[in-house]
């Protein structure tokens, strides 16, 4: 029987398209979770102004922030899920090594992040449309600026993808040792209570960065580091069924 050679990139490509089909449930759960988020957002952030002449203005501020937060949550859960044993074993039924398995997972998560970012950003317009149609309100939208719209999608995708990398690392750690199931939440909650300043610093470091290029560099490096750590952890894992 003639021997075949396998090329890493070819294999990753095959695994990626296989995962898109195999993990279709993850995509549909993204749609579901975003719909729920839209429902939550329908109330909008409200307020009212009244003048001395008896004129009262009620306003609602509709944003996709809740949808984005929900999408990030989805990203975290999905990233953790695909590091679990059943998902890793799907790869080992066919042709794989640990690197190609992780790379195709990352590609899948990137796809999910982009998709989630696009739909989350579009959901703002959906919200406004619903408000206009059903709530009899006058909608004032900021002027539609295409570059800003795209920038918004890219930024949200990067945030979501970064959350994916965190989830992937958590998942990888848990696969190595089950005690991380407890340890990780303890660390996170502990850091919220004890080191409030750490969170604030993190927030300032990433979110408050005014320069887009710096933001891009910061978040990409962070994401890459998390993924690299995960790959090197998962690279040593054995397949046990």
């Amino acid at each position, binding site marked *: *029987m*003639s*021997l*075949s*050679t*396998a090329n*890493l990139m070819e*294999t990753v490509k*095959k695994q990626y*398209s*296989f995962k898109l*089909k*195999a*993990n*279709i*449930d993850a995509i549909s759960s993204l749609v579901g979770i975003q719909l729920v988020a839209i429902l939550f957002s329908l109330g909008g952030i409200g307020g009212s102004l009244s003048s001395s002449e008896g004129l009262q203005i009620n306003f609602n501020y509709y944003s996709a922030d809740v949808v984005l937060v929900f999408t990030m949550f989805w990203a975290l859960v999905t990233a953790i899920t695909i590091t679990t044993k*059943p998902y890793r*074993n*799907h790869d*080992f*039924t*066919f*042709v*794989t*090594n*640990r*690197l*190609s398995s992780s790379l195709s997972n990352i590609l899948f998560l990137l796809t999910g992040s982009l998709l989630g970012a696009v739909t989350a950003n579009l959901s703002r317009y959906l919200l406004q449309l619903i408000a206009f149609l059903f709530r009899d309100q006058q909608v004032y939208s900021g002027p539609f600026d295409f570059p800003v719209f795209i920038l918004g999608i890219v930024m949200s995708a990067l945030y979501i993808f970064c959350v994916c990398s965190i989830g992937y690392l958590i998942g990888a750690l848990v696969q190595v040792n089950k005690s991380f199931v407890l340890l990780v939440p303890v660390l996170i909650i502990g850091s919220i209570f004890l080191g409030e300043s750490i969170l604030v610093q993190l927030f300032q470091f990433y979110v408050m960065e005014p320069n887009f290029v710096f933001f891009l560099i910061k978040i990409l490096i962070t994401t890459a580091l998390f993924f690299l750590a995960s790959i090197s952890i998962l*690279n*040593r894992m*054995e*397949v*046990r*069924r």
Partner: protein
Amino acid sequence: MSVIECRELSKAYLRKKVLNQISFTIEENKITGVIGRNGVGKTTLLKIMAGFTKETSGEIRVLEQRPFNNLYTSVNSIFVDDQMSFPPALQLQELLEAAQTFYPNWDMDFAQRLFKYFNFDPKHYHNTLSKGRTSTFNAIVGIAARCPITIFDEPTTGMDEAVRKDFYRALLKDYIDHPRTILISSHHLEEMEDLLEDVLLLKNGKVHLHIPISDLKEWAIGLQGQASSVLPWTEGKEVLYQNQIGLNATYVVIKNDLSEAELAQARLNGVKITPVHASDLCIYLTSDTKGGIDDVFINR
């Protein structure tokens, strides 16, 4: 050409040694049966070959490369057992198509014929199949992938007898048309012994025997008769199995190294000489006691 080479290969889980410095080589395009009792390390050995599990010490070469985490090993080998895991979102037909994209030698026409013959519904899902049907589907994937190294770990789990026979025959016919290196572990040596060329017998984490099955069939003989006439022949020989039949008749299995003349002499003494079935012999060889389960009931 040898395609699999092990040198003092060991594997330990935590502190328990499963494989203990085993060495052997497997030649290209042979069908080898991996035989041994439960928990002797068959699965562990096969998984190391497939690159799933990492060896603790020693060396293993599959197609002249170390299999662990090796893409080259992965594309040229397939590991089939009843735990093979497939995504629950895909239908059986889609799984076959996925397999086709990954395995370069995959024969879709052949896979479809087997699929039809065994009455699979292309729209069913893998996780809804029964135990025997799961094994059958996995076996189809294993045969149709036509990997130069094909590993079956207990492939017939749950299959009924008719399917088991069909499976062995399908494997053999496809092997004749497309020779490849095949390893099968099974508890049912008697039903697959005709299929095998070699036998790799594991005992206590070691390779106990690695010989052609035809040699295994002649490896030992059974002597049956009056204890007084049988026992002299076993002097100075390793008794593999001994069983008392009735009052003073006895059945003894020893290594077949008697000469023709000695055999004739034994027959004249009233000793009945019988060949020992390969599967029985394997049980005798791998058991720790000489009398088997009967020893439990002695001297109570």
